[in-house]
């Protein structure tokens, strides 16, 4: 039981990692990028290809890929998201959904239906673990994932709080018109935020590929997990995302104790329970969820 809890927490840290970029874009641009999961899987495929082709460590491949993902984020913002944002609240959903279909199927046409994993590329790290008293096992890779998740969320939080670009991002998220009036180029800020978000997505995609298998259509599940983590965490700070991810991971692990299908069902049920609790018990007005998520004060 204690072990299940620990495994749930470690799994939850992965969810926080995949949710990080979605939460960040949602907070700054106020849109939910429905292509988020597909882009993570795209990142996984790119890192995998480079690691295989050059026979290098996936972590090294990730470092090589990160700048390109940042550039892709910049392009995504300037070509798709910026235009979508101008034409109303629904358009970003439609355009990013279309983009997700394109990415998924392009990946399928290039890589086929085979499931892949990068676990073989990192040797012992993939399965090595420490046995603690009380039957608790901590996998080295799972712990590394957790450390990266906490470091990334903490780093982003620090970045938002302490750096000029971070302040500009927060100012633009709060009031883009006024941000322009104090000399901030909101278009550049949005593009930078999307670029940062894409780098976190590449990191998350890499860890997805390291800790499990992935295939061209794995994106939608990742999107759903990320979204559930954000909504469950709900408090608005990036740390809320971490808590949400952990709750999701624990719920899934406890669910899997009940039945094999309970893994996913447990997570979805917690998601709906949290939503219902937020709306009916706390009696918060509709829409407050978005507002609370947008507040990224340090």
């Amino acid at each position: 039981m204690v072990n299940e809890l620990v495994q749930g927490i470690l799994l939850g840290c992965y969810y926080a990692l995949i949710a990080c970029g979605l939460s960040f874009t949602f907070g700054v641009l106020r849109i939910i990028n429905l292509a988020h999961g597909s882009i993570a899987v795209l990142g996984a495929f790119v890192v995998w290809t480079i690691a295989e082709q050059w026979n290098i460590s996936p972590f090294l491949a990730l470092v090589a890929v990160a700048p390109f993902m940042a550039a892709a984020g910049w392009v995504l913002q300037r070509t798709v998201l910026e235009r979508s944002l101008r034409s109303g609240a629904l358009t970003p959903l439609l355009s990013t959904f279309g983009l997700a279909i394109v990415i998924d199927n392009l990946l399928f046409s290039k890589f086929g239906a085979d499931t892949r994993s990068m676990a073989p590329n990192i040797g012992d790290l993939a399965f090595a673990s420490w046995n603690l008293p009380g039957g608790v096992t901590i996998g080295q890779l799972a712990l590394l994932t957790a450390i990266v998740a906490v470091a990334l969320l903490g780093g982003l939080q620090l970045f938002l709080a302490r750096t000029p670009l971070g302040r500009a991002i927060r100012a633009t998220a709060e009031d883009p018109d006024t941000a322009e009036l104090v000399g901030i180029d909101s278009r550049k800020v949005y593009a930078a935020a999307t670029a940062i978000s894409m780098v976190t997505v590449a990191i998350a995609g890499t860890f997805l590929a390291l800790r499990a298998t992935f295939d061209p259509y794995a994106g939608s599940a990742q999107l759903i997990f990320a979204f559930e983590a954000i909504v469950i965490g709900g408090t608005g700070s990036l740390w809320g995302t971490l808590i949400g991810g952990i709750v999701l991971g624990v719920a899934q692990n406890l669910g899997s104790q009940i039945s094999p299908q309970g893994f996913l069902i447990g997570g979805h049920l917690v998601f709906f329970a949290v939503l219902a609790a937020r709306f009916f018990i706390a009696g918060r007005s509709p829409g407050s969820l978005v507002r609370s998520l947008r507040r990224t004060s340090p």
Partner: protein
Amino acid sequence: MTQAQPIVVQRWNVLSIAAVTSLVALLVALAFGPTYLGPNLTDRITTLFIYVILAAMWNALAGYAGLVSVGQQAFFGLGAYAAIRLSNAGINVYLALALAPLIVGAASFPLSALALRLRGGEFAIGMWVFAELAHLSVNLDGLVQGETGTSLIALSAFAPDVRRACNYWIALALMTALVGLVFVLLRSRTGAAIQAIRDNEEAAASVGVRVFATKRLIFVLAAAGCAAAGSLTLSTLISFQPKTYFSVQWTAYMIFMTLVGGLGTFEGPIIGAVIFFVIETIFGASGVWYLVGLGASALLFSLFLPRGIWGTLTDRFGIHLMPVGYRLRFGSGEPR
């Protein structure tokens, strides 16, 4: 108050009268379809009717109530599942197929209390999560046997020709009824409320439009409509595999048809369904590139032609085939 030119509120014009007349003629012609279409074409046209239903329902939800859902496959799948369950309980198979959408519609009523509190993207993915949950829950049913699935065995009691014709007529009738319902809804007081909500939700609420009740009405209609499409699909395929029915691809089709035809127009989704039907017939076999094309079209239409083909045409030329709106015209005469 004096007015040199009286303003006439107009609903019908020559074009819309002609359009409605030819539509009725088309429906009559379609009603005799199975007698002259041949088995293959009858099946294909049945599929087209199902697409029209799906597109019209998704358009009602997104184009009129402003609710973009990526989870309508939930109702599609539940409609088929409910029919399986009812038939298994000993109810006449065609009655089961007819009751299923009503049950799913009723079940969507309590769900709406939660779902409609979500905004924009939250609603979109929230519905997707619901669809996943519905899928997993159906898999737990011993009758369905997980992803193995089951069949609507009771249907095999009917001869294939009879079945084919029945499916065709039921699909035609349901399509006419559901699209007609949207038409009536748009012309009623609710139609005005819907347009007010679409233009500005807060302003609509402030002048007394019952925003939540109106959205709920459309949400339930769309749920029941998608369930009807699911139950119809089951009646043509007979086999029920949860993965097929609860696939997000159904919603992708709905979005494609609505976006290409014209989001928020009455005629658009019907045109979109026909376009999708033609594209599927020609390119459906090319698999993955066909899907890439669908996704790319949705992306490009949402960015560059957000009113779709039909919406762009009406904006440019002022054509309105179906009398769903009101037009103001300068001139004399009584309001028609």
